[in-house]
């Protein structure tokens, strides 16, 4: 009798668990479909000839024998290495100045230094052409060197990767423990010794992480070398040339596999380093606030000036160039370059497509990341599923956009794939962009969820609230700020991305960033600058909206967040 009355509710709950696991499995399968499957297609394609016959490593051998690999790989490594060195040292100096001095207007300086993140990587390349190109404003500064080539690539790469490094280093430096500094002061350490014994060691994991991030970004970037690289071959541009220029897809696959390997290595190395950091993290730190010190402020100002000037100059030049009627002969200001109807077949169409892509990616990406993070963190799931999910969620960090995009061609354009109708359409662009930028929001939400008390669900159950009720009334409101960040991240990246989507857009789904590329190719550099500025302005607007919403949230939630 009691057995009977028991079995029904038990069944229900078993079913809830099963339902949650089922949902998780479905989402995992979706992730498998949009990430490992295309990669596998790419890999198998690199081992086949143009007719699809398996040829083993013949393509790799051919590429190696042509000598192209050694050249392109050497170039990519050199450019990425040099850019990393420059970006890390200047970003560290800037982060130090922003966190360790009381320079007035630090907030504004910080915002200005982070501006490049809102621009497509094509923008600095175009701007540098106006600054240092054949008819450049400051051409004489280069003393006969050409901006087209490694010089331009490094400068352009430094511009757009700088904020990525700065953000990581700002976090690393602002986690400093005031007690260490007090100890150093009590022990009468000089400020240099304090720097080398306290500041630097504390930031070392941040430094390593930032270095890996910048290296991967530059190594796999395609926009900057495409526009300003001249004849200087790099791996990423080589993929593009093989596929778009020569239609040699299997060779494109070979190069993008080669592009993937160093990125994968850097990714694994970074993971390894970060895991060691987790073990060294100690108890709660006392936050550090710098004391007033004029001399140190001055030093900070000196350190901040070069990157600030460089970033403002590059952005300023792009805006100016987009407004000038006919560089350098007619410097009259006008909006002529923004009349895309005259320059592009679809006029503002590509820009509107980008907006659509960004909006859809924002919606789909934010919901998917939230749902997945919630399922993995806040519901009971079998361990193996969680492991697989964790791997899948972080993998995109290691996959270069070009590799991903090419994999999508092979997988979704395959005649046997029932999904091949998606090719060239908006859906596929959204999917690809979503996957490409999945990892950072995922980590973001994971952190947010980890900060929530792990017993909320247990309390909810004891109070007979359903999981959905806890989700809507507690978890969701509590993770709104993180969700806002995630939404902005998806939007901005979808607006600015080039590398993955360059293989996937169709006649009806051309994108603004691709238009920049095409306009530049067609010699319409001013139009390209105008489109790049449009993208950046849109992202800036989105950022502004994000800040306003953030402020609104603080005002609404301030009371219970304890900051009222």
């Amino acid at each position, binding site marked *: 009798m*009691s057995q009977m009355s028991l079995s029904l509710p038990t069944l229900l709950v078993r079913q809830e668990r099963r339902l949650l696991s089922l949902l998780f499995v479905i989402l995992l399968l979706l992730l498998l479909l949009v990430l490992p499957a295309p990669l596998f297609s790419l890999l198998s394609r690199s081992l086949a000839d143009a007719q699809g016959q398996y040829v083993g490593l013949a393509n790799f051998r051919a590429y190696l024998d042509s000598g192209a690999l050694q050249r392109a790989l050497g170039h990519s490594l050199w450019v990425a290495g040099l850019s990393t060195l420059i970006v890390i040292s200047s970003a560290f100096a800037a982060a130090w100045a922003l966190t360790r001095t009381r320079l007035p207007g630090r907030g504004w300086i910080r915002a200005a230094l982070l501006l490049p993140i809102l621009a497509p990587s094509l923008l600095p390349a175009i701007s540098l052409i106006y600054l240092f190109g054949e008819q450049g404003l400051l051409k004489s500064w280069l003393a006969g060197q050409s901006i087209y080539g490694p010089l331009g690539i490094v400068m352009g790469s430094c511009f757009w990767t700088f904020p990525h490094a700065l953000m990581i280093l700002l976090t690393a430096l602002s986690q400093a423990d005031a007690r260490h500094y007090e100890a150093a002061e009590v022990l009468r350490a000089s400020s240099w010794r304090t720097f080398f014994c306290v500041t630097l060691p504390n930031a070392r994991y941040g430094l390593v992480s930032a270095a890996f991030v910048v290296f991967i970004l530059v190594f796999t970037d395609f926009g900057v070398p495409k526009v300003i690289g001249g004849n200087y071959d790099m791996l990423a541009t080589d993929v593009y040339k093989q596929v778009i220029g020569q239609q040699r897809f299997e060779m494109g696959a070979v190069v993008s596999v080669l592009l993937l390997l160093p990125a994968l290595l850097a990714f694994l190395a970074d993971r390894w380093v970060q895991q060691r950091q987790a073990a060294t993290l100690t108890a709660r730190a006392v936050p550090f606030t710098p004391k007033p010190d004029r001399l140190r402020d001055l030093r900070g100002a000196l350190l901040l000036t070069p990157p600030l000037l460089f970033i403002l100059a590059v952005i300023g030049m792009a805006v100016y160039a987009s407004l000038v009627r006919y560089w350098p002969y007619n410097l009259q200001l006008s909006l002529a370059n923004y009349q895309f109807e005259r320059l592009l077949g679809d006029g503002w169409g590509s820009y509107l497509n980008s907006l659509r892509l960004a909006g859809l990616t924002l919606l789909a990406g934010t919901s998917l990341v939230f749902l997945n993070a919630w399922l993995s963190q806040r519901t009971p799931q079998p361990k193996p599923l969680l492991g697989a999910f964790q791997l899948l969620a972080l993998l995109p960090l290691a996959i270069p956009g070009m590799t991903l995009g090419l994999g999508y061609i092979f997988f979704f354009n395959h005649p046997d794939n029932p999904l091949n109708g998606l090719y060239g359409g908006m859906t596929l662009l959204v999917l690809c962009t979503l996957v490409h930028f999945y990892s950072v929001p995922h980590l973001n939400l994971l952190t947010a969820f980890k900060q929530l008390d792990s017993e909320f669900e247990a309390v909810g159950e004891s109070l*007979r609230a359903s999981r959905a009720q806890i989700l809507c009334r*507690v978890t969701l409101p509590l993770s709104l700020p993180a969700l806002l960040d995630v939404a902005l991240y998806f939007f901005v990246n979808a607006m600015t991305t080039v590398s993955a989507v360059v293989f996937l857009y169709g006649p009806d789904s051309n994108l603004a960033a691709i238009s920049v590329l095409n306009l530049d190719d067609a010699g319409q550099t001013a139009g390209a600058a105008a489109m790049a500025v449009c993208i950046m302005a849109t992202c800036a607007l989105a950022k502004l909206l994000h800040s306003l919403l953030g402020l609104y949230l603080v005002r609404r939630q301030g009371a219970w967040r304890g900051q009222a």
Partner: protein
Amino acid sequence: MQQNCGSRLQLQAIHKRFGHFTALDDIHLDIQPGELVCFLGPSGCGKTTLLRIIAGLEQQSSGRLLQGHRDISMLPPRQRDFGIVFQSYALFPNLSVQDNIAFGLRSLGQPKAQIKQRVDELLALIGLADQAGKYPAQLSGGQQQRVALARALAPAPGLLLLDEPLSALDARVRGHLRKEIRRLQQQLGVTSILVTHDQEEALTMADRVVVMNHGVIEQVGTPEQIYRQPATPFVAEFIGAMNFIDSPRQADGKVRLGATLLDMPQAASQGARVRLAFRPEEVQLLPRHSGGLPACIEQLEFLGTFLRARVRVAGLEPLLTVDVDPRSALHLHLHVGQQLDAHLPTVNLRCYAA
């Protein structure tokens, strides 16, 4: 105030394994309606695991749980009848105090007016009627604790589970809340289980204490029983301080303690050697040549209401711990290096197998 009727809870042969690790081994327990039982034990002994199994938040590997006449072994938490307070309180930070307390009532779908009345009742009960609109972040630790308690009690559960509810508070607040929780618990008559590793908390609050170690129950008893008649050396040592002296069993069944031969306190222990145990306050220090064992003070520690001395006694192996009340200490002019006589207790000795 509506009176709760606490329910009886029976645990039968509960086992819990995490992989190859046995966290709980054959736990039997019978908790009476309205009783407050403390699970006491060192860190990692399985207290929280047992509590979570009772709540249904963790699934036992085998064994049965009965609440009243209901077999709840396989029921999910939502179908069991309990309220729970966690160490972290787990108050919903985005809900005000009254919304937190009303949370469980809302999910029961009670009418608004009734909810309001019940919340006010509980707020008055925990003495926070004037803080109803505040958010958890605006309350002190002790106040948050009381809100968590009220939230757990709101749906009038038959069983209240508390996992180290006071460990995040400072000593003064803790002392106050102990009384408060006990008062509420008795007033409502709700069967309660309190997990703690603080023996003082267990001894002052509980009707019965369950002492656990390495996943097994060492002893169940009233605080007095636990203190006076610890069933095992572990309990003896874990609760309060205890002196242990190993001694060979004499031919006539007696044991030797220092110079005296004693009757075996319990017949239970076997083997050639026994371990005798007595509390520090049961040893008496007297001036030299008053008929005890010669002793020398090696260390003195001032502990407020009494002095704790480490004493070397002739013929006994380990140093003895002796508690002396301040008056006798003054009388004896207690100081380190002093030669005294120690009187060891001859009655109420505990005896374990060595």
